[in-house]
């Protein structure tokens, strides 16, 4: 056997492929991929839309409440509380935005080296995200506290009678749910770290292999 014979066998793969392709299975996989891709896009759009609507709505409502408080000459504490809750909503939205990480890309770089660098940057970012739990907790806590403060302002300024016992139970329940979610997120991120670190090491090795001269 010589090299020419090997090349001949190699080139014959174009006309006589080494495998047969099950077109039905491929079509099925493509349909599933298309559906998954559309689902993810829809989900992302909905989430952004909800965050935008909620944030804008709450900001307008809080601003409106400050204006009413001033116009009606209500105690200044309500205007301050509304302003504080507005600030907390903004802080919450900002912290969640800063901690959101990168969106998965479907673009393709021009060369393998660029592609590996891009993948590595994404893995680095995902790993960094596991350390950005603080931002998630800050964002969620700001929104929860802002909502509570705003609810208090609305209820107190209108002299709405509510049972203080019920209010404390409700606060305790929200705090418990919040702690549980933060705990689950922290565990999920901690479990993902070994896989991500392995992938990071592999990509770095690959980059070193591509970058080494000769």
């Amino acid at each position: 056997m010589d090299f020419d014979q090997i090349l001949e066998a190699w080139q014959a793969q174009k006309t006589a492929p080494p495998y047969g392709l099950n077109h039905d299975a491929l079509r099925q996989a493509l349909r599933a991929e298309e559906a998954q891709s559309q689902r993810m896009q829809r989900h992302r759009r909905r989430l952004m839309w909800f965050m935008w609507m909620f944030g804008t709505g709450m900001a307008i409502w809080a601003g409106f409440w400050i204006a009413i408080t001033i116009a009606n000459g209500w105690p200044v504490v309500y205007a301050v509380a509304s302003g504080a809750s507005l600030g907390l909503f903004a802080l919450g939205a900002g912290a969640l935005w800063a901690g959101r990480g990168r969106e998965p890309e479907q673009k393709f770089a021009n060369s393998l080296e660029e592609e590996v660098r891009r993948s590595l940057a994404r893995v680095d970012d995902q790993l960094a995200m596991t350390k950005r739990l603080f931002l998630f907790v800050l964002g969620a806590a700001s929104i929860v506290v802002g909502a509570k403060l705003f609810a208090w302002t609305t209820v107190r300024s209108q002299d709405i009678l509510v049972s203080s016992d019920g209010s404390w139970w409700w606060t305790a329940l929200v705090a418990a749910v919040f702690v549980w979610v933060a705990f689950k997120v922290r565990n999920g991120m901690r479990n993902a770290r070994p896989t991500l670190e392995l992938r990071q090491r592999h990509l770095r090795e690959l980059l070193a292999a591509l970058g080494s001269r000769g």
Partner: protein
Amino acid sequence: MLASEQNTVFQGWMEAHTAILYKVARAYGATHSDREDLFQEIALQLWHSVGAWRGDCAAATWIYRVALNTALAWRRKERRHLHGRQDIEDASRLLVVPCVHDPRLDWIYRRIAELDEANRALALLMLDGFSYREMARVLGLSESNVGVRLNRIKAALAAQLAREGRDGL
């Protein structure tokens, strides 16, 4: 780009260049099951890439680029974990193995599998007759680096052939 247009381009590529996907899947997958999984992953990434193709290089070059990018980034368990895709073993088989094996192909794929991942990509492109410039562009290496690496690969292949010739294999 419309979904129907994307599917038409993809089908055209699959009809004309499926061999590239087979070769890359075989070079980077250790077992048949791995190859099936990788083949599926490459096909899906190729489908996603249709919109990004601007026609500034030959379709075969683009397909090689996407296939190699996918193969090098591919880690079987991770991909499934990340995307929640269906396990290929649970679905109908994607690749059908033919009855006849060419021992020359088995030999060259064994030699390719012995190379590191970056050099495997170079070996595939070399065997498919890509120029140094095209290989450099696909892999993001300098042409001189491609030349040095290819010389080493060729020398290793020649040495192995000579050794097996001497041993009467």
